[in-house]
């Protein structure tokens, strides 16, 4: 059995390491956010910039953009460490691998999910969302985007060393993202329809707990398979 005291230090170590790497390659984070902003900007250009229409489409567009920018950053999660052998060294450490990959997931969310959550209100206002809508949207994104990072980590680990790279990862991961997208964007729709967003938040929270319980172990198993 693994020593329970080894879990938290392992998590903290992996989190701090990945955050440090992310902060030292800040331009990648910038590109990420520029991509998010661009996707959000393209939709009004393809449909009429009618305020009522944009108000209806806004939550869905912001969610799809959040999902795509999370997906865009997934290969970075393991690929570089896999290529230079760091991942093999990490997997050999006596600390539990599930805790180490959890730290990497948390770093992925802090560098890709959190900026999206913070920036969402600005873009939501560009889509003529009301203040109440913005609050519900941001709360949904805050609950949902960590799930995207966690499910994405499983896919990123599974595709290590596989041909097809990004498009294969998208095929594996996007279907699994569907429930998060539905409940996240659905929360705002529920408020529009005069209902409470509570059930959607409860389901997102349940999904978050379930993902936090399951995905570290699935990701650790996938990393071991890739390193075989």
């Amino acid at each position, binding site marked *: 059995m693994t020593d329970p005291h080894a879990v938290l230090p392992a998590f903290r170590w992996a989190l701090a390491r990945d955050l440090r790497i992310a902060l030292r390659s800040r331009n990648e984070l910038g590109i990420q956010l520029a991509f998010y902003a661009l996707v959000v900007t393209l939709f009004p250009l393809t449909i009429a910039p009618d305020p009522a229409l944009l108000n209806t489409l806004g939550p869905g567009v912001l969610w799809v953009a959040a999902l795509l920018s999370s997906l865009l950053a997934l290969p970075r999660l393991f690929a570089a460490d896999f290529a230079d052998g760091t991942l093999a060294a990490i997997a050999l450490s006596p600390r539990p691998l599930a805790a180490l990959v959890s730290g990497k997931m948390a770093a992925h969310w802090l560098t890709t999910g959190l900026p999206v959550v913070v920036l969402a209100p600005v873009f939501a206002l560009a889509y003529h969302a009301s203040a109440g809508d913005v609050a519900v949207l941001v709360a949904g994104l805050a609950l949902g985007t960590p799930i995207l990072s966690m499910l994405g980590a499983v896919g990123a680990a*599974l595709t290590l060393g596989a041909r097809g790279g990004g498009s294969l990862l998208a095929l594996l991961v996007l279907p*699994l993202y*569907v*429930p998060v997208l539905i409940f996240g964007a659905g929360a705002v729709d529920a408020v529009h329809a005069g209902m409470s967003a509570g059930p959607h938040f409860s*389901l997102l929270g349940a999904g978050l707990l379930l993902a936090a319980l399951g995905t570290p172990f699935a990701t650790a198993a996938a990393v071991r398979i*890739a390193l075989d």
Partner: protein
Amino acid sequence: MSVNWFKYASPASFLPLAGRLAPGFLVAAAILAAIGLYLGLVVAPTDFQQGDAYRIIFIHVPAAWMAMFIYVVMAGWSALALGYNTRLSAMMAQALAPTGAAMAFLALWTGAFWGRPTWGTYWAWDARMTSTLILLFLYLGVIALRSSIDDVRRADRACALLALVGVVNVPIIYFSVKWWNTLHQGSSISLTAAPKMAMIMLAAMLVMTFAVWFYCIAVVLWRVQAIIVEREQNSGWLAKAAGT
């Protein structure tokens, strides 16, 4: 009498067994399909609401059931492959994926042709249609992952893990889509309520279900033979078994 089930966990002893079983299942499927189609297309009366268009359910419903069922079976073989590290389990999972994808596609395709005369639209974003579409993507993901990894044993284990992650998500996806939007009619068959279908229609559908089921088993057994021969071509036993 005790049977050593593990005997057939070896590809060498499973290959001849699959070769003997596959034609039997195919013949059974053909006979059942003949009976089922006769019952469904000739004996069953025209539905007073849907006209003759409803008759597509004799293909549509079995295909939709098999699409879901095969995914669960594939996940079961995947769990065995990961748990016991048995090669044959992974080969079975590999053989099941294309058939499952075909069934999901067939269910969507026939559903579109049913929907046009019945609902007036080929496609509606309804729970079961959308979740079947996502199921098709899950199958395609497993097939794509397998073809993207060159090392066969690694592909086995990666696909097994993906199938297990997928099988946990299938009910979540189903309910999320269901609560999101539902205009699909209720289930045609329910174990708790009295069936609303005429007995003869139900009988035809059940016979067709077994026909499609046996067809899937036959096709998977054929495909697994091809996979065994392909993977074991450099091993001694295959050459001996072929008598060369």
